[in-house]
């Protein structure tokens, strides 16, 4: 291993470690017996017990997951189609189109949230989980587009052309060649849109109906009760544990 490689390895893993620091703190404090976020007073499992008994937290977590999943699917679909169209067919005015598609990413969220609600009121649209999804897709589809387009660029058309020379039609080529080649970028776009939607607070807060909490809104309401970390930290710990397990099992499976 060369010096550069070693340096890269050290850089990579130390940054990853640093990003885990807050998580470690959170996990540690999920076992704290007092309410304080600053002072660790003693070990307890109480937070986990109260978490298990708390139906609302699970409900809001599931709400977050399913709305984010729908948002990711719809955004990817719209984003892939648009990016493919622009790169493959180079329509006239695509630069203008690009700037227009960028605007949803640029506009401050609070502005978009409030005006979207005003629009929904004017056209008589009732707030529901669907309005949350709509609000998120309006941001996430352009986001997916941006990431996917970066990947499409300088795109090696040889494979597609080869497939078509061999008699595959365009649609088959798109599904059999283009999409699999795009997979890493699709994955990256899926992760980004998921993070954004799963974590979004402002837009969700404005577009949600009463009685439908996502996890960030629920956490906000917990801050309201002055009982933030009791079981939310425990929940975070469990989420981290599950995703860690998932990653680990996946790694093992792929190895074999």
């Amino acid at each position: 291993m060369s010096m550069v490689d070693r340096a890269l390895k050290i850089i990579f893993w130390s940054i990853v470690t640093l990003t885990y620091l807050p998580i470690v703190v959170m996990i540690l404090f999920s076992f704290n017996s007092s309410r304080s976020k600053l002072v660790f007073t003693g070990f307890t499992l109480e937070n986990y017990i109260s978490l298990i008994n708390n139906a609302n937290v699970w409900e809001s977590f599931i709400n977050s997951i399913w709305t984010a999943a729908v948002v990711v699917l719809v955004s990817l679909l719209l984003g892939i189609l648009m990016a493919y169209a622009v790169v493959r067919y180079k329509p006239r005015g695509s630069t203008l189109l690009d700037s227009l598609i960028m605007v949803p990413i640029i506009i401050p969220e609070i502005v978009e949230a409030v005006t979207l609600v005003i629009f929904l009121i004017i056209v008589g649209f009732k707030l529901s989980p669907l309005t949350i999804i709509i609000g998120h897709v309006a941001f996430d589809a352009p986001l997916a587009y941006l990431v996917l387009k970066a990947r499409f660029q300088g795109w090696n058309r040889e494979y597609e052309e080869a497939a078509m020379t061999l008699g595959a039609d365009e649609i088959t080529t798109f599904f059999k060649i283009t999409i699999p080649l795009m997979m890493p970028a699709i994955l990256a776009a899926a992760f980004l849109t998921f993070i954004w939607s799963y974590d979004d607070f402002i837009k969700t807060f404005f577009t949600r109906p009463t009685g439908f909490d996502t996890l960030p809104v629920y956490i906000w309401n917990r801050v309201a009760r002055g009982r933030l970390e009791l079981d939310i930290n425990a929940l975070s710990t469990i989420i981290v544990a599950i995703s860690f397990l998932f990653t680990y099992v996946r790694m093992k499976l792929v190895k074999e």
Partner: protein
Amino acid sequence: MEGDTFIDKIRRSRSLKLFLLLGPGLIFLAIFFFAPFVISLMLSLGMLDKEVYTWYLTFEVTLRYYIRFFTNPGTVRAIILSFYYASVTTIGTLLLAYPMAYYMAFKMDKRMKTTAVFIIFLPFWINFILRVYAMRFILHEAGPLQQGLISIGLLSEPIPILGTDIAVIITMIYSYLIFMLLPIFGVVEKINKEYIEAAYTLGAPPLKTFLKITLPLSKPGIIAGSLLVFIPALGEFVIPILVGGGRAYTIGRLIYDNFIRISGILGWAMGSAAAMVYIGLILISTYIYFKFVGREITLI
């Protein structure tokens, strides 16, 4: 039969193809993004008003909300501070993310790559606000980091970091890193390794190969990542409030304050005007950015 002919039609017609590919996205955005955007524009020009919950057109156009925005001396300072935070954050995330993406793309096998993406993604399962709180705890004078440094003798007494620009920037870099990393990784990963090997075979030194081949080829990822970091960082207002001691007054906070702190239509109008100026500023700065750095992302 009919299905066949329809598909045949699609095969033949370029514009039909374009319509089917672009249509759904554009129609969606036209309804659910641009309509609200037009409402915002109309609010900023004083063209909308309401009576309890009934909205109507005022049939007038005024620039008074824009004038008000520009005549406030606080505005310019907020804009400058926001640009400062956003630029430092973008450069910081780039400097950290590029080596990471490079390492992942070139030094990891296929299985490890996906695992690495999962590992990097894992902290993001935790709510943003909770992560910022955790960060605040870490930077705290009585927190584990500073106390740890003191106990091993690297620090003689705690330094107040919270409430300073440094705290804001560290937390912003931490929060936005993944938005830089993933697009760069997506692009660097697809670079054909044969080019690089060819360069080595031809005797090019590694540094030169990197500067002449790898870096230019990763440009679209860098540009996409920079936009994904710079733009939200410019409008960020939660981090300056939570770790900036309420001191760091950014354009994002200014717009938020207008929208929320001033009741009703007046606040929405003033906030919209500020937002329109802000959008204009971003469009101008991305234009300049494209001009100097390149615009692979918009030009095909």
